[in-house]
């Protein structure tokens, strides 16, 4: 008789080491008493995060800044707890980003509000099958405010991507300075360290399989080796491709991908999406840039180059302001087709329609199949992945079952 709860402690521990996401680890510890006691909780798992304030030294932006606060927002794909109703067309997955007690747009930092009236105040996440898509790390400037009650209300967002590697007693962080240089910070350090003095500006950083990678605006990919106590080293893993205007790195099905965004600056086309400037007030200067297409590349480490990927098959790539992730269409359980890229784009913010709902949420879709590009609402089945919350969230099953029992 298989008694999984009676497994030797070291085997329980070994199994837990094969769980790569924080939520799977949390659930592992919620299964039974012996599993829970055999595996101690990992640090930095709580959300909201409690990362220390990082010093300003070496990376000062303005004279008044006091430092940075690092925060962490997890992105999840939720599914209905009731798998038997799979014929129901509303059974598609829901992509969410949590930030303290708010739901954020998965691809930007804007907030989804107001929440529907019947949205639960407290949600028991253990009722829902959840896939952790990624962890979004962001830095916020902390200005010195002696009257502020909490640090949380102080910051301005630092607008470059942050990659973090959690270590046993702390973390290592890699980001891009506004000047375009790569900078790193190790917890406990007094100041930031510039990784590459002589480089072209960098576009993106990512942490994959415990390694840091970065890409500059020519598409040159580098592995950033940050060994303890030694100076950081850069190793070229792929040569430049030039091409588009902004490069993004992403992990998908074990591969390292580079997504190259092509912009065009010029008169708006006749879609008329130039309303709502106040939606993204920091982005005033970008209003005339439009995304026109993307190219996707996969890393060929042996040949030190990026190889163009023209078919993503059933993969969907998501390019957000501060995070990137990929999902298989089969994981979404929706009407969507794969072979496309969903991206944050402030040109796709429309005013509320007559139903009082935001239609596009600043999200666009690019299809690799035919090169078509447009706001998320013009592609079937995509907008509902983000908002509004699916019906099974607002009427959680356990309460229904209880009500049934009471025969209400």
């Amino acid at each position: 008789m298989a008694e999984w709860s009676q497994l030797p402690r070291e085997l329980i521990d070994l199994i837990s080491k094969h769980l790569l996401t924080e939520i799977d680890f949390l659930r592992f510890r919620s299964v039974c008493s012996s599993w829970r006691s055999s595996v101690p909780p990992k640090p930095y798992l709580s959300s909201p995060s409690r990362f220390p304030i990082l010093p300003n030294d070496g990376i000062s932006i303005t004279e008044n800044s006091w430092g940075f606060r690092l925060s962490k927002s997890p992105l999840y794909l939720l599914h209905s707890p009731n798998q038997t109703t799979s014929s129901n067309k509303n059974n598609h997955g829901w992509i969410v980003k949590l930030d303290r007690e708010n739901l954020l747009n998965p691809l930007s930092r804007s907030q989804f509000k107001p929440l529907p009236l019947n949205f639960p105040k407290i949600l028991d996440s253990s009722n829902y099958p959840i896939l952790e898509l990624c962890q979004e790390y962001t830095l916020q400037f902390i200005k010195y405010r002696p009257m502020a009650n909490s640090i949380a209300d102080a910051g301005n967002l630092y607008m470059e991507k942050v990659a973090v590697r959690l270590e046993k007693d702390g973390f290592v962080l890699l980001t891009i300075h506004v000047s375009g240089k790569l900078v790193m910070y190790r917890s406990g350090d007094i100041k930031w360290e510039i990784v590459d003095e002589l480089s072209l500006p960098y576009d993106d950083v990512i942490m994959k399989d415990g390694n840091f990678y970065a890409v500059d605006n020519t598409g040159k990919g580098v592995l950033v080796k940050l060994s303890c106590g030694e100076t950081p080293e850069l190793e070229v893993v792929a040569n430049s491709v030039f091409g588009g205007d902004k490069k993004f790195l992403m992990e998908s099905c074990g591969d390292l991908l580079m997504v190259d965004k092509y912009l065009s600056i010029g008169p708006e086309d006749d879609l008329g999406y130039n309303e709502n400037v106040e939606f993204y007030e920091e982005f005033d200067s970008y209003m005339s840039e439009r995304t026109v297409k993307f190219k996707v590349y996969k890393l060929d480490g042996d040949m030190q180059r990026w190889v163009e990927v023209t078919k993503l098959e059933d993969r969907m790539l998501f390019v957000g302001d501060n995070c990137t992730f990929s999902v298989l269409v089969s994981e979404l359980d929706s009407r969507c087709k794969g072979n496309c890229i969903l991206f944050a784009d402030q040109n796709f913010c429309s005013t509320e329609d007559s139903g009082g709902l935001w239609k596009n949420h600043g999200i666009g879709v690019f299809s690799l199949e035919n090169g078509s590009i447009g706001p998320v609402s013009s592609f079937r089945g995509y907008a509902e992945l983000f908002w509004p919350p699916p019906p099974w969230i607002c009427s959680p099953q356990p309460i229904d079952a209880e009500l049934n029992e009471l025969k209400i």
Partner: protein
Amino acid sequence: MSSTKLLTLKTSDGEEFKLDEAVAVKSQAIKNMVEDDCVSNAIPLPNVDSKTMTKVIEYWKKHSEEGVSKDQLNDFDKGFLEVHHSVLYDLLLAANYLNDKELVDVICQEVADRIKGKTPEEIRKEFDIKNDFTPEEEEKIRQENAWAFD
């Protein structure tokens, strides 16, 4: 052709398995016994039954074969691990007892794959595990899993 030494392994239910020494030493435990030179007769394995030993030997033989590609091995492993969780359980304990780190790791990965993305209740159903938390533990777990919204 060099002489291949045959080892005899005797499982808990009395069955005997004859195996090339070169294959059997995938088990660090057996390897140690061979090196310590205490294998004159059959090696007793009181913690492994014949059904499980058959499976383990099947794995060892496939992974010792020559001319097998990485893809073919992956396909074999996938099929090999497509078993009821009770078989997996016996395999895991046997691999641990025999000290075959590679096999232990492969099985742990399969167990983890059956856990990923599931709710705690679904994991319990998958492995027939009983929820044995005290009410205090339950409450703590509920708090850990709670998402509060403004």
